[in-house]
């Protein structure tokens, strides 16, 4: 047996783990080999030294420390459990790269929106403080309706409910308000209706906005010639006084008339502002009329002060604004048999013609549901033509505008002009 092989067996030999045969052969080798015997003695001395090592005792407070550690571990385990359950409920781990990419995308979108808002604010610095609300765009109640179609019969178009109408909104500070003196609807005479021509225009007092252009709001007072049948309300009112059914003249039977008129459409093909105006006005549900009346009681009281009791009209109702598609030509407007120099139809045609000549575009025309007459016009106009445009309007009627209107044209190329037509009250 080799010495190296015997050395490998020393550990088992000391522990008594060798079988009898191997143990005898090892002992025979040790008896003959002093070197291996010395190695065995050294190994046994080392093992004996290890076995003689004293036992290191645990500290006296070992049990307390163990218990403290168990308590701490229990709390940590509870916290770890809560953290896993509450904060990391996902079993599918999201890669860090994907999370970072999503965060970067959110950041880019946030910065982009912030830059857009900043650009809009910087573009409107000349108009003073912006309103706190977002100006709502007035949407057409029925999409795809043409101007002509909307004027032929009020029975064909559905009347919007008050909920469909744009809600009344606070005026924009720093902007030229239109319809500031617009009275609220009330049972009124022809004259009173002329003074308060458009109760339905109340929602339009909220300025509409066109993106990318500064908006200028104007109120054009269309004069009425003395003794002449001019303008929207007067012509309509007189016609209504003469043409409408007799019971309609009785103010006490106004609701009754409306119910009847709603069920009896006007004769087809009769393109006249008179009868349709009554029918349109009377086609409104009672509730809407009541709502319209309740909108502005003080204005109603003012309007009633000028009322001729004998010619009390059915209360104009709160109706929908009809919109014309952009670019409508004046030829689309049906000719009124009573169109005069100060007729809103003619005024509308003149303004449209001027806008087109000046290189602008007519965005939309809105008509009163009560009178069916043009009530508001929205057009885009080159800013350089503003002065000429204002002069043109002054030749047509009285322009109610503050002195700072001209300053709005500075610094922009295009203006959005919103003109509200009002009939000046005829005075004898």
């Amino acid at each position, binding site marked *: 047996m080799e010495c190296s092989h015997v*050395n*490998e067996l*020393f*550990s*088992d030999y000391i*522990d008594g*783990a060798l079988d009898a045969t191997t143990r005898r052969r090892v002992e025979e080798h040790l008896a003959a080999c002093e070197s291996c015997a010395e*190695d065995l003695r*050294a*190994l046994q*001395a*080392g*093992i004996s*030294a*290890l*076995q003689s*090592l*004293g*036992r*290191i*005792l*645990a*500290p006296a407070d*070992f*049990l307390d*420390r*163990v*218990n403290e*550690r*168990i308590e701490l*571990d229990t709390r940590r385990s509870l916290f770890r459990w809560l953290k896993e359950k509450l904060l990391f409920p996902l079993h599918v781990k999201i890669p860090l790269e994907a999370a970072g990419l999503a965060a970067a995308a959110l950041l880019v979108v946030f910065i982009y929106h912030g830059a857009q808002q900043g650009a809009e604010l910087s573009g409107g610095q000349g108009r003073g403080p912006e309103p706190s609300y977002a100006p709502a765009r007035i949407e057409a109640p029925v999409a795809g309706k043409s101007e002509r179609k909307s004027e032929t019969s009020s029975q064909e178009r559905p009347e919007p409910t008050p909920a469909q109408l744009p809600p009344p909104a606070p005026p924009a500070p720093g902007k030229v308000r239109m319809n500031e003196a617009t009275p609220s609807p009330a049972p009124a005479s022809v004259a009173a209706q002329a003074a308060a021509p458009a109760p339905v225009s109340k929602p339009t007092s909220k300025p509409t906005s066109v993106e990318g252009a500064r908006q200028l709001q104007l109120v054009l007072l269309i004069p009425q010639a003395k003794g002449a049948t001019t303008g929207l309300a007067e012509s309509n009112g007189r016609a209504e006084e003469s043409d409408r059914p007799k019971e309609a003249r009785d103010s006490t039977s106004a609701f009754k008339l409306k119910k009847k008129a709603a069920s009896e459409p006007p004769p087809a093909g009769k393109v006249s502002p008179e009868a349709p105006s009554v029918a349109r006005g009377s086609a409104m549900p009672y509730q809407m009329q009541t709502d319209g009346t309740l909108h502005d009681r003080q204005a109603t009281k003012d309007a009633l002060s000028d009322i001729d009791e004998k010619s009390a009209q059915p209360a104009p109702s709160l109706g929908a604004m009809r919109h014309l598609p952009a670019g409508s030509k004046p030829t689309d407007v049906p000719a009124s048999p009573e169109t005069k120099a100060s007729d809103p139809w003619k005024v509308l045609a003149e303004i449209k013609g001027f806008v087109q000549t000046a290189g602008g575009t007519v965005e939309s025309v809105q008509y009163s549901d009560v009178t069916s007459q043009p009530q508001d016009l929205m057009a885009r106009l080159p800013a350089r033509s503003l002065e000429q445009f204002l002069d043109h309007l002054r030749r047509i009627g009285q322009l109610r505008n503050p002195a700072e209107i001209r300053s709005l044209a500075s610094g922009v190329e295009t203006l959005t002009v919103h003109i509200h037509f009002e009939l000046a009250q005829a005075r004898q």
Partner: protein
Amino acid sequence: MNEDGKQPGMEQQEETAWIEAFLAGDRSAFDRLVLRHKDRVFNVCYRMVGDYEDAGDCAQETFVKVYRSLKDFRFGSSFSTWLYAVAVNTCKNKLKSSEYRRRKKMIPIDDPPGDSPGGMVAREIEDPAPSPLAQLAEREREKILQGAIDDLAPEARAVVVLRDIEGLSYEEIVRATGYNMGTLKSKLARARQQLREKLKGVL
């Protein structure tokens, strides 16, 4: 393994009863288990890691692990063997941790273990030598032996500590370490040879 002077069979029956009581909700039964085995576990940990503070940390962690996993204990094996297995594995993890290796590179200059007369290790040694000179010689011998153990690999340390210091049988070491008998004998023989080389001419 019978520090209380009881027969191993009786001791094991008693521990089994304590474990069952603990699993039934008796918290004091676990304390009795700790009190019975704390010195044995602490000594194994000290010999494994070679540092008093680290030994305390490992011994505490060993009992915390036992507390958490005692419900998984299989009564077919000895509780003390299972305790050794937990303690050795805890010490192995400690030895492999980066913090421990970093600290081992730093040499304490104020109170190196085993050097100062009032050292912690010296105070805690069981059955001290009768005279200061004998204590000093014993401490020096202790230091040499512990140094030789510390030079072994963790696996070799474990088998040497369990066999030559704690006196476990081969079968118990196999159960505690998971080695098969041949591997255990091979590792033990190699570790002893390494110790002999280191202790040659010293002892």
